[in-house]
């Protein structure tokens, strides 16, 4: 059945530009609000959010280093692990921290300016900024204390790859935010399914050390493809034989498309479901 509509007749400035400005104001307002609320919970809340992935990265890297593994796939372990975990965290934090954004900010939907997608975008920006800041800080710390740093032979490609990964992660987060708001069990299931991802995405153990048949199966995991190519562009590591960036990019585009369609189809139901 065709959906009805509420139209606001505006004069002067173009409605599209006005809409963009309004939405950016709303997103900024939610970002400010979220940071304020987190800071109130604990004075060190933002510090903890930054330090958490750093400790995560450093502990895993240190364990492998202590087991006398200094080189993985031709890279120093203190470079190999942080690069892999950085890309891994971008995806996993997107699908674990962002989907609850709509239900957590349901009261804000009483303002007609706030649309359900706004808290999703705002929380995604916060989480991704903190994750990337923490990863960069960790790499600098390792450079400072251990004296090794990624060579970054293809910086533009590395940035482009991160952009594609962020696109796919946002699509997945949006999809889960829409259906997770209706069915909370979906989020619980995704959190459970997310657990083994660290072992099958070449984050702790290299995919190069696995038999070719297993490599073939694992190559269906787009996150593994992203991590492999990120290490390739940021540190010059060889990509495993089944590496296929086109496939990974396609999955990202499909995730963004499905996420957007899911949001568009349910944008009114999300407001009513509060």
């Amino acid at each position, binding site marked *: 059945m065709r*959906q009805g509509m509420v139209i606001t*007749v505006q004069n002067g400035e173009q409605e599209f530009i006005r809409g963009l400005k309004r939405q950016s104001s709303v997103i900024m307002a939610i970002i400010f*609000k979220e940071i304020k609320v987190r800071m109130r919970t604990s004075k060190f809340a933002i510090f903890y959010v930054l330090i958490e992935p750093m400790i995560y990265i450093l502990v895993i890297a240190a364990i492998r280093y202590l087991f006398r593994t200094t080189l993985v796939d031709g890279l120093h372990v203190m470079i190999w692990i942080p690069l892999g975990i950085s890309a891994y965290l971008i995806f996993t934090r997107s699908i674990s921290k962002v989907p609850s954004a709509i239900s957590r900010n349901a009261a804000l939907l009483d303002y007609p300016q706030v649309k359900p997608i706004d808290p999703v975008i705002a929380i995604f920006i916060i989480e991704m900024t903190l994750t990337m800041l923490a990863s960069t800080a960790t790499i600098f710390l390792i450079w400072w204390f251990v004296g090794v740093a990624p060579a970054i032979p293809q910086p533009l490609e590395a940035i482009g790859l991160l952009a594609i990964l962020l696109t796919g992660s946002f699509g997945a987060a949006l999809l889960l935010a829409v259906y997770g708001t209706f069915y909370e069990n979906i989020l619980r299931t995704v959190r459970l399914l997310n657990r083994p991802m660290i072992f099958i995405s070449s984050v702790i153990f290299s995919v190069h050390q696995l038999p070719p048949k297993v490599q073939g199966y694992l190559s269906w995991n787009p996150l593994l493809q992203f991590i492999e190519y990120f290490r390739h562009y940021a540190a010059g590591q060889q990509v495993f034989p089944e590496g296929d960036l086109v496939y990974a990019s396609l999955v990202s585009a499909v995730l963004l498309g499905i996420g957007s369609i899911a949001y568009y189809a349910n944008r009114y139901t999300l407001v009513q479901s509060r």
Partner: protein
Amino acid sequence: MIRVEKVTKYYPTFKGLHYVLRDASVEIPARAQIGVLGRNGTGKSTLMRMLAGVDVPNRGRIIKWGSVSWPLGIANGVQSQMTGRENTRFACRIQGLHYDEMAPIIEFVQSFADIGAYFDEPARVYSSGMRARVGFAITMAFDFDFYIIDELTAVGDVIFKEKARQVFQEKRLKAGFVRASHSTEELRAECDSGIVIHDAKLEYWPTIDEAIDRYLSLAGTRGDGGGREKRARKARRSQAHSTANSAGDSVAAGAEPSSKDRELRRALRAAKRKGRPGKPDASSLQVN
């Protein structure tokens, strides 16, 4: 102006679709003071939310010329995690105000809501009255062409009600109000025309008296709210008569009672309950 064109709104229920509005059309002129009446569950709040743009119809369309406020109700718009100040700042930001433009708005909300140090506490510790005061103050801090007010009648103490009445008077000179309420007295005092929602239809009445009569007749035929209203009116008339006699007040039987009269009657009733009929004590007569 707000134009509601053939709007249909329904909610899915276990027994099928529950229609709140079906092909409803109405035109609300600029600066109109409209009261919305209807029994509980007839769709007053849904209509208010759709007029504000928070909700959308299933069919039809609502066209708005000018700015329309968010629906102002008892629990709307104030986020529990944020303080009163942060809620105000948030409203400023989504209205597109710059940081240096926020100070006078925050000052207005703080002084209008008048909740003291609680203004800098998270709204989750507020009472429902305090939340409503902050929400009301935030809405009144901005200029809209239409204010949407959903059953916000019993908020605040006498002083706050007086402040609210004054700000309403100022705003209604340059803006329209759409108010949903069950208080026919309040709507009669504040509104010029009325909309009655009944059987998923919107009925527009050019005068509020006609709208109230229609609402009461609809409710009365069902032997519920209308019956109560009639009984209440009868009780008020007889009470006003006895009050005028006993306390020597100038309230005439059948006249619209003022807030002072209501306070007096309440005090008399309280005194009666305590078994001390007659003159209530002086403190309970304090109105302002």
